[in-house]
C-alpha cells in the first residue's frame, strides 16, 4: 500500500528521516519496498503566465508564447498542439536548461529559426500522471515563478509498504501505520476524536436500517447528510488521494476514500433521492411533519435472478449467497464490494446517505471472486476489519462533508450493531517467552512493549494475562503475543545459539542416492543434464501418438503449450534436440523428472523417470549401440549386470520398431531403449536420427545395491580362440551366446563379438559374426586338445542354428 509521509505526520510525531523510518518499519513491522520522493526532477519547473501567443511563421503546428516565469524578462517558448494555450493562463514551465523526470533534457534551442527557452509541460511529462493527456492550470493568485513543487504541494514522500495478510486488518491505512511508528519511536498517536458528536440511535423517523443477516453484516452505521454541493475536491485532498494511487472523483466520493485511506474503514455514499422509498427526502422545513416518509435500507441476501448495474457500468448477476444493500425494491449496492450506478453521487446530488458498515470477510471474498470484481473496499473487507471503528470514521466523514460540501446532518446516526466484539484475553506462562525466543526479556520490558501496542498486560505468579485491542484481529494465541514482543524487542537483539541435539548419523534416502548416482555416472559418460517443464501441449501428445485422455489437464493453464501434465519426458527432450542441433552437431542429453499418471481420481501416480537422448548429425548410422554401451556402463556401475533386451510390446508408437527394445533385468522391465521413429522426430523438425532411453527409477531401485564382493583372481591362463560364423539375419546374438555357453558353461568364461560383416559374398540376408571365446579352468592350466574338443562342439551347436564357419 502507498503511505504518505506527510499524512503520517498528522497522526504521529516523526523525528527521523524517511529512509531511517523505512528501515525501522522494515526491521520491526513490515517491509517498505520503495520510497518515492514527490517532485523529484521538478526543480527546474515553475508556474508561468502566458503573456502573448502567436503562430510560428515557418511551422503550421507550432506556436510561440511569451511567458512570464517570474524573471526580469519573459521567456520565449515554442509549443505544439497538445493543449489549448491562451493568454492569461498559468501553466507549468520547464526552464531550460533542466532535466525532467525520465531523464528528459530540456535545452535552449532554435526551432525553425525561432529560439525556445523552455517547455510548457503536460502532466505526464512531469511524472504527475501515468497515462492520458492533461495540463495543470494554476489559480490567478499563484505567483509567476513559483516552483510547481510548491504550488502543487509536491513535497511528500511516498512509502510503498507490503502489508501482509496478518496486518491487513489494522494497517491498510495511515492511522494503523502511524500506530506502529508511535510504538517504534516511543512516541504517541495524536488525538483522533471528532469535533462533532452525534447521537447514536437504532432508527429515527428519517432512516430505518434492517439487517436480515447479522452473521454477514456485523454492524451498519448510516446517516443522512443534506444540502450538499457536489464539486471538485480541493488540491490538498486530490494530492492525498492521488499520492496513494486513488483517482479523485468529486468531493463526496473523495471524502469516503480519504477516510478509508486514513482509518481503513471503507465507506459508501448513496444519492438519497434516488433510493426507492415511498418519498423524497424533504426540505428541512418539512421534516417535522413527515414521519411516515422514511427511507428504508435493507441489508439482505440477493434474491434469485437479481442483478445490479454497478458503478463500473457493468451489470452483475447476483445469487443467493451475495449480500446486498437494498431499498424497497432493488439492490442499490453489492455490500462491501461496489455501489450501484442508480444511486451514485454526481454533480446533481443534493442529499446523501453515508454508509459505514462492517461485512463478514469470507462472504465478501466469495462474492468478489465469483463476480471477478475487486475494489479498495472489498480488498479491505476480505481481510476483516474491526467493527468498532465505524462510528469514528462516520464522524470524520460528516465533519469533512460539512467543511467541503456544506452538508448538514439534521438528526442522528443510525447504528445497528447486534453483537459488539469483545477484547480477547490470552494468558500463558511467562517462561514461554524465553522458550520460544531463546532470550530472556525482562518483565517490565514485556509489559512496556505490550502497552505501547495498546494491549493490556499484567503478570502475576509467573502467568502473564493480556487483553488484546479489538483492531488486532491477527492476535489469537500466546505465540502471536510473543511475536509482538520479539519484533518490537528486535530480532537483531536475539543471539545466535546452536541448538542442543542428539548426535545421530543421517542415512540417505535410497531413491535419492540412486538418483544422485545416475546423475554422476551420466555426467561421466558425457551426458548433459536438462530441466524441462512438467507441462505439455495437446500437439506434443499427438505428435508422440500418446492418448490425450491419459493426461491430467489444468483448469487454468498459462498457455496452450502448457495445458497438460506430461506422461513422458520425451516431447521436451525432442524440443531440446531440435533447438541444440542449430548450434552443435552432436550431443547426449538426459533429464530426471516425474511424469504424472492418472490414478482413478485419487492423487496421480508420480512416476520417476530417468531419460536421455543422443543425436549426431555426422553419424548416418544408428547411435543405438553407442547408447546401449553407455547404459551397460551405467548399469554395471550400479551393480546391475547381464541385462536382457526384448522387443517392445507396447502401444507407444513413437519407437522405431525395428530398432528398439525393452531392458529386462530379472524378468522385470526396467526401461526401454531405441531409436525414435523418424516420423516422430521429423514432427519436431529433427532431420537427424535420435536414439532415446527411459529408465523407470522405481523398478531400478529394487535392484540397486552398492554392495561389492571380491572374487578371487584366477591364476591359470585362459585360452582364447576366434571364430567367424555366417548366420541368417534373423538369428539373434543372445541365442548364439546361449548356445555356446550351453556347450560347456564351466570352462567357457566369456564370449565377445568383435565384428559383424554383411556382403554379397555371403548371400542375401546373411551376416558374418566374428567373436572370441575365452576358455579357462579354475584349478589347472587347460590343455590345447581339451579346448579344441570344446571348440568343435561349439561349431557343431552353431551348425544346428544354421551357422557356417567362414574360412
Amino acid at each position, binding site marked *: 500500500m502507498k503511505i504518505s509521509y506527510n499524512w503520517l505526520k498528522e497522526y504521529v510525531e516523526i523525528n527521523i528521516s524517511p529512509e531511517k523510518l523505512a528501515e525501522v518499519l522494515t526491521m520491526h513491522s513490515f517491509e517498505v519496498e520503495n520510497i518515492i520522493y514527490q517532485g523529484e526532477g521538478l526543480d527546474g519547473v515553475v508556474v508561468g503566465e502566458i503573456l502573448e501567443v502567436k503562430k510560428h511563421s515557418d511551422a503550421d503546428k507550432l506556436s510561440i508564447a511569451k511567458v512570464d516565469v517570474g524573471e526580469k524578462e519573459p521567456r520565449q517558448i515554442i509549443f505544439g498542439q497538445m493543449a489549448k494555450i491562451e493568454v492569461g493562463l498559468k501553466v507549468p514551465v520547464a526552464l531550460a536548461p533542466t532535466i525532467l523526470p525520465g531523464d528528459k533534457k530540456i535545452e535552449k534551442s532554435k526551432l525553425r529559426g525561432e529560439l525556445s527557452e523552455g517547455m510548457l509541460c503536460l502532466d505526464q511529462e512531469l511524472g504527475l500522471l501515468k497515462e492520458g493527456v492533461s495540463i495543470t492550470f494554476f489559480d490567478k493568485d499563484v505567483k509567476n515563478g513559483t516552483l510547481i513543487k510548491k504550488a502543487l504541494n509536491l513535497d511528500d514522500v511516498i512509502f510503498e509498504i507490503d502489508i501482509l*495478510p496478518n496486518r491487513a486488518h489494522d494497517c491498510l491505512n495511515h492511522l494503523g501505520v502511524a500506530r506502529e511508528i508511535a510504538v517504534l519511536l516511543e512516541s504517541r498517536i495524536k488525538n483522533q476524536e471528532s469535533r462533532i458528536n452525534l447521537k447514536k440511535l437504532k432508527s429515527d423517523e428519517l432512516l430505518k436500517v434492517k439487517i436480515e443477516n447479522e452473521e454477514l453484516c456485523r454492524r451498519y452505521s448510516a446517516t443522512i447528510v443534506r444540502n450538499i454541493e457536489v464539486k471538485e475536491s480541493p488540491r490538498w485532498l486530490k494530492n492525498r488521494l492521488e499520492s496513494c494511487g486513488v483517482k479523485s472523483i468529486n468531493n463526496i466520493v473523495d471524502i469516503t476514500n480519504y477516510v478509508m485511506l486514513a482509518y481503513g474503514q471503507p465507506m459508501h455514499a448513496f444519492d438519497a433521492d434516488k433510493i426507492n422509498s415511498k418519498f423524497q427526502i424533504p426540505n428541512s422545513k418539512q421534516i417535522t411533519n413527515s414521519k411516515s416518509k422514511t427511507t428504508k435500507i435493507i441489508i439482505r441476501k440477493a434474491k434469485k435472478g437479481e442483478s445490479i448495474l454497478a458503478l463500473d457500468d457493468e451489470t452483475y448477476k447476483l445469487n443467493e449467497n451475495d449480500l446486498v444493500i437494498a431499498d424497497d425494491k432493488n439492490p442499490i449496492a453489492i455490500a462491501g464490494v461496489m455501489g450501484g450506478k442508480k444511486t451514485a453521487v454526481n454533480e446533481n446530488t443534493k442529499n446523501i446517505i453515508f454508509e459505514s458498515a462492517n461485512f463478514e470477510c469470507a462472504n465478501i471474498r466469495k462474492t468478489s471472486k465469483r463476480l471477478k470484481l475487486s475494489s479498495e473496499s472489498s480488498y479491505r473487507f476480505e481481510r476483516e476489519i474491526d467493527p468498532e471503528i465505524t462510528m469514528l470514521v462516520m464522524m470524520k466523514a460528516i465533519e469533512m462533508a460539512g467543511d467541503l460540501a456544506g452538508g448538514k446532518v439534521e438528526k442522528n446516526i443510525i447504528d445497528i450493531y447486534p453483537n459488539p466484539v469483545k477484547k480477547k484475553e490470552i494468558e500463558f506462562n511467562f517462561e514461554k517467552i524465553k522458550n520460544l525466543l531463546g*532470550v530472556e526479556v525482562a518483565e517490565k520490558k514485556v509489559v512496556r512493549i505490550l502497552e505501547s501496542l495498546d494491549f493490556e498486560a499484567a503478570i502475576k505468579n509467573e502467568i502473564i494475562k493480556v487483553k488484546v485491542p479489538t483492531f488486532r484481529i491477527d492476535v489469537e494465541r500466546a505465540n502471536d503475543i510473543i511475536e509482538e514482543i520479539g519484533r518490537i524487542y528486535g*530480532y537483531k537483539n*536475539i543471539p545466535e545459539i546452536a541448538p542442543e541435539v542428539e548426535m545421530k548419523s543421517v542415512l540417505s534416502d535410497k531413491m535419492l542416492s540412486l538418483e544422485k548416482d545416475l546423475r554422476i555416472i551420466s555426467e561421466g559418460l558425457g551426458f548433459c543434464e536438462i530441466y524441462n517443464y512438467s507441462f505439455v501441449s495437446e500437439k506434443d501428445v499427438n505428435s508422440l501418438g500418446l492418448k490425450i485422455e491419459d493426461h491430467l489437464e489444468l483448469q487454468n493453464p498459462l498457455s496452450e503449450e502448457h495445458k497438460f501434465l506430461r506422461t513422458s519426458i520425451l516431447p521436451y527432450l525432442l524440443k531440446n534436440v531440435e533447438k541444440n542441433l542449430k548450434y552443435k552437431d552432436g550431443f547426449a542429453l538426459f533429464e530426471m523428472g516425474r511424469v504424472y499418471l492418472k490414478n482413478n481420481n485419487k*492423487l496421480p501416480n508420480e512416476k520417476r523417470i530417468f531419460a536421455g537422448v543422443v543425436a549426431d548429425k555426422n553419424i548416418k548410422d544408428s547411435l543405438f549401440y553407442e547408447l546401449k554401451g553407455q547404459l551397460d556402463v551405467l548399469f554395471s556401475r550400479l551393480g546391475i549386470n547381464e541385462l536382457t533386451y526384448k522387443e517392445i510390446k507396447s502401444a507407444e508408437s513413437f519407437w522405431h520398431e525395428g530398432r528398439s527394445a525393452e531392458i529386462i533385468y530379472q524378468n522385470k522391465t526396467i526401461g526401454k531403449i531405441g531409436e525414435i521413429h523418424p516420423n516422430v522426430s521429423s514432427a519436431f523438425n529433427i532431420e537427424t536420427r535420435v536414439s532415446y532411453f527411459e529408465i523407470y527409477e522405481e523398478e531400478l531401485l529394487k535392484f540397486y545395491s552398492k554392495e561389492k564382493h571380491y572374487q578371487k583372481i584366477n591364476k591359470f591362463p585362459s585360452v582364447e580362440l576366434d571364430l567367424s560364423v555366417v548366420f541368417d539375419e534373423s538369428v539373434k546374438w543372445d541365442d548364439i551366446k546361449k548356445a555356446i555357453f550351453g556347450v560347456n558353461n564351466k570352462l567357457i568364461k566369456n564370449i565377445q563379438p568383435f565384428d559383424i560383416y554383411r556382403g554379397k559374398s555371403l548371400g542375401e540376408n546373411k551376416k558374418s559374426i566374428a567373436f572370441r571365446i575365452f576358455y579357462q579352468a579354475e584349478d589347472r592350466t587347460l590343455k590345447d586338445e581339451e579346448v579344441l574338443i570344446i571348440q568343435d562342439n561349439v561349431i557343431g551347436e552353431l551348425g544346428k542354428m544354421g551357422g557356417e564357419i567362414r574360412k
Partner: protein
Amino acid sequence: MKNRINKIKELALKEMSEAKSLADLEKLRVKYLGRRSDLTNVLRGLKDLSKGERKEIGEMANKIKEEIESGIRNQESGIKKLKFSNIESREKIDTTYPGEKIKKGHLHPLTQVRYEIEEIFKSMGFLTVEGREVEDEFHNFDALNIPKDHPARDIWDTFWLKDGNLLQTHTSPMQIRFMKENKPPLRIIVPGRVFRYEASDATHESNFYQVEGLMVDESGKITVANFKSAMAEFMKSLFKREVKIRLRPSYFPFVEPGFEIDVSCPYCDGAGCRICKKTGWIEILGAGMVNQKVFTSVGFKKDKYEGFAFGFGLDRIAMIKYGVDDVRLFYSGDLRFLEQF
C-alpha cells in the same frame, strides 16, 4: 699361429666398429666367438701343440676372446645408446596443440547447487526427503493453516487440475506428510519442484525449485535463537565466507512468528553493489516458528512441540551464486548455457 690370432683380432675389432645394429653384432659374435669360429678352432687345436706353445698361444687366444667379448658388449651399449640419442629433437611434439576431444558431461546448475545444499544440511544432521508434485488442497493449504476463502491464499497463485487437485505451490506440504509418519525430534530438508500460476519473466517461472527445512523437538528445545544460529551456519557454508544474517518480521500462515531472512551480500560484504541493489543485503528465505495449528493438524498435542521451518528458492540461490540474470535459462535446455556449468 700368433699372426693368425692377431689377424682374427684385428679383423674382429674392425668389423665390430663398423657394426650398425644389434643384429650385425650378433652375426659378428657368431662369426668370431661361435663354435665354428677361427678362434674356437685355434683353442680346439691347442692340444696338438707343445707344452710351451700351448701355454703361450692359449693365454693369447683367451685374452683375445675376452677382448672381442668386451668389444661386442661396448659396441652393443653404444648402439643402444645411439638408438635414443637426440630423441628430444627427433620426437619433439607441439604441446600447445589441443588434446583429444573427450565427451564431457554436465550436471544442471540447479542440481549442483541442490547437492551442495544437501551436503551442508546433512553435516548439520538434516535428512533429505522429497514430497509430491501434484497435491491436494488439504496438504497444500488447509493443513498449513491456509483455509479456503482466506486472503492468505492469494500469496500463492495456484495451478488447479481439472480433477480438483493442484500443483504444489511450495514444498511445505511435505511438512505435513512427514510429520504424519514421523514423531519429533526431527530434522529434514525437502527439495522439490513447485509451481506458480505466473507469467514467466527474468525473475519468475511457472515451475521452479524450492528447498523446505523443518526442525522440531519438544517445547523449549528449539528457539528463535537456535534458528538464527542454524541459518547463519548454513549461509556461511553456502557462500563460503563470513556472511551475516538478519531477521525481519514477515507472515506465512503456517508459522508464528514469521520471518524473512536477509544475508549480507556475499559480493560486496554488505557495502552495497549491483547484486544487492545497493542495500548490502539479499533477501533469501522465508521462515518462522511452526504454527501450533500445523502440529495439531498432524495430530500432535498442542504446545508439546516447537520447531522452525524455512523455505527458499533454489533457482534464486543458483542465480546469486553463478550470477545468472534470467531464471528462464535454467529451463531453456540450451547447451550454450548448460555447458558452462
